[in-house]
């Protein structure tokens, strides 16, 4: 046990190129995942370039053109109660919603992974306390935490992202904790420890790579979840504030006009569903491809 290099499962296959990897091949065989990637690509491209192709500014108010139904003139998706073009708003909203979803995922995954690794590696009292905190957070209905926190903080896209992240890191923490516990006593970890590696090095270099699969899967699903959460919070009026559009706040108030202007509700809802479905498809595909445990909740 005196050799300096410690073979760890994650680094074993580093020689091969990633695009030739079995994982990728398995992923590409997963038809839904491919559809998901395609849909999300189209969505992202529309949101990035769409606004430049439309003749309307997403903030331009024209009270004479209120409630125009879809396909009125160049208003392909119609207009809202202030006469703003819904297509222009939808694409700009998509930028916000997708960014919020993505960054919320990054933050919550980082936080969850950190807590999960420490709890799993340390175990004992530290681990127990950390995991009880995780349990405590999980005991709240997440919508409560969101609303309570949103009432606290001035809602800006950044703060909403932070709030969503603060309410969705727990599951990652659980998954990582379970993963780490299962490998903590394996030979390569014991070896690293006996060599006097610092704990932080062991956690980052030895343990983390082994949990990366489940983390990626959980992360993908978290994007989906974060987009949904943003929609819920903004729908209830506590999220992204107008005039900045987000898919969620475009739905806020749509119920009031459901009878006379149903497109106000239908258009952003379809966008949300498409985006969330795509990420769920991708997550499912990744899970199969990475052969991660299939009982993620």
């Amino acid at each position, binding site marked *: 046990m005196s050799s300096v290099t410690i073979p760890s499962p994650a680094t074993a296959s580093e020689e091969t190129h990633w695009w030739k990897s079995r994982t990728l091949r398995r992923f590409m065989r997963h038809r839904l995942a491919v559809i998901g990637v395609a849909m999300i690509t189209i969505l992202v491209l529309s949101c990035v370039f769409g606004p430049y192709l439309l003749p309307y500014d997403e903030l331009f108010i024209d009270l004479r053109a209120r409630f125009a139904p879809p396909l009125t003139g160049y208003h392909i998706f119609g207009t809202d109660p*202030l006469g703003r073009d819904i297509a222009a708003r939808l694409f700009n909203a998509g930028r916000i919603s997708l960014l919020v979803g993505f960054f919320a995922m990054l933050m919550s995954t980082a936080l969850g992974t950190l807590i999960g690794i420490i709890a799993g590696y340390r175990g004992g009292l530290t681990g127990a306390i950390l995991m009880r905190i995780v349990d405590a957070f999980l005991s709240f209905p997440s919508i409560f935490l969101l609303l309570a926190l949103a*009432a606290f903080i001035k809602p800006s896209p950044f703060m909403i992202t932070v709030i969503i992240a603060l309410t969705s890191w727990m599951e990652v923490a659980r998954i990582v904790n379970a993963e780490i516990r299962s490998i903590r006593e394996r030979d390569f970890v014991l070896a690293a420890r006996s060599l006097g590696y610092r704990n932080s090095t062991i956690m980052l270099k030895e343990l983390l790579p082994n949990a990366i699969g489940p983390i990626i899967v959980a992360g993908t699903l978290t994007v989906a979840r974060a987009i949904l959460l943003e929609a819920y919070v903004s729908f209830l*009026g506590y999220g992204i504030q107008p005039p900045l559009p987000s898919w969620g706040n475009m739905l806020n108030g749509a119920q009031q006009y459901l009878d006379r202007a149903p497109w106000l509700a239908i258009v952003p809802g379809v966008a949300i569903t498409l985006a969330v479905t795509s990420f769920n498809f991708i997550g499912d595909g990744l899970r199969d491809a990475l052969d991660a445990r299939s009982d993620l909740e």
Partner: protein
Amino acid sequence: MSDNKNDVLTHPTRRQVMGQTLGLMALRASGVVFSGVPGFSQALAAGEKSIKGQLIISFSQEPTVFNPHMPHIEVDDGIHFSLFDPLFYVDPEGKFVAALAAEVPTVENGGISADGLTWKVKLREGVKWHDGAPFTAEDVKATFELLVNPDFRSWRKTGHDLIRDLKVVSPTEITWRMEKAFAPYPSILASTFITPKHLMSASADPNNAPFNNAPVGTGPFKWVERVAGDHITLEANADYFAEGPYVERLIYKYIPDLNVMYTQFKAGDIDVLGLQWITPDHYEEAKDLPGMTVSVVPAATVESFSFNMDRPQFKDPAVREALYAAIDKAAIIDALYYGLPAPTETYMPQQSFYYNPDLPKQAYDIDKAKELLDTAGWAPGPDGIRAKDGVKLAFTCSTTAGNHIREQVQQYIQQSFKDLGVEMSISNLPPAVMWGEYWMMSKFDTVIVGLNFLTGSDPDTSDYFRSTSIPAKGGAGQNTWQYANPEVDALLAKGGEVFVPEERKAAYAKVQEIMRKDLPFLPLFQYATVQGNKQGIEGINPNVNTRINTWNVGMWRRA
């Protein structure tokens, strides 16, 4: 039209109380009603009341406070009016009408001394509480004492705390002395319901008395039950001393969503709509609904774009004036509010005797607004935002999150201001946050808010405009604009001391003129509500001096 009408709408109440010689003359001139409740004699003559059927009244907020002396909201008022009576109330014309008092106390009938300090109120005989106990002067005394009880969460002590030497002379007579003459007191009394001593004193802690959730009053209806989160049932008080009731049962149904409420109204599930009635966007359709009576009813609330005058941007009057000129009021009212509310230049309801109709009319003129700012030295910076002496013309605007039309108004104004080189960002808050310290302690830049500045029909607004009423500076009132103008202070003081309505009117007209010039808030419009009921229900009579349309529910009947 309004001039003639306003003569009828006299609110001469102050003087009636304070009764100096001049006041007496005005009193006679204005023809105050001294008799009892209108229709009372007819009802007695008819011998018996015909009580039949039930009425379902909908509220979009849930009534939860049934002790009328504790802090409560509008819809709670609606229940209080059904269960309780004040000594006298204020009718739609602004006149006082006796209820539990045998007659409205005045100088003429000896109820109030010439200096306005000594009161003697005769009470109606033979009135019984819903539980059968007789109503006496002891109940009135106990009510007044409860209102100033330091352990009790009384929502309003104002005026009551001036009462001294409260004495029960006989079961039907009570007297007291006022520490000082206080002009708005009759209006306060008109919204002070009398509660039963024997039930209120039964509990050691009046804040948690069983009475608070099983109220007993003298009113036209008796408490039956409340299903929390759903509805409240009341039944007819057949022994009611005045006119009515004419229906066996009232059901106050809580429907938290205005669209659902409207749908159910259309379907005929609701007899009479209560607060918040029909949203403006449904008016066009609603007014032609078969079998329904739908009308536009003005309310005393005035919508304003309010400034925090302590912010450096808003200290310059030119800024406030320019922003006012940049608001397209007509577009907001016509497009977003479907033309229902009336534009206004003042905080005073247009139905009030004290309304000043001669204020300059605001006109939407973006060029004039630009010119005003240019002249005042607010020049556009490199980012297009105007600035002067390092102060950028950028600020936030807040209002209650979830008020959709108002949020649209906000975004519309935001665009207009942007054209002007003014950056307004929106920061809306949930109601419990918005109207807490954020509003009361002036932590906002600007706010869009609807306020009813008056107590009943009384024009006194000292708590809102006096420079000593600024909570952020340790004041006791609700001058959240932090508005301070010695002239207004003096006029408000004078308005509270002079008891001749015409003289008072001069003072308050001047206050309105100064407020229009100073613009601590930009008056947008006076509220109009779209109220509705099934045809064949009679007696519904909106009252701009109360907050709720069920103020006279005892007189409602099915034809």
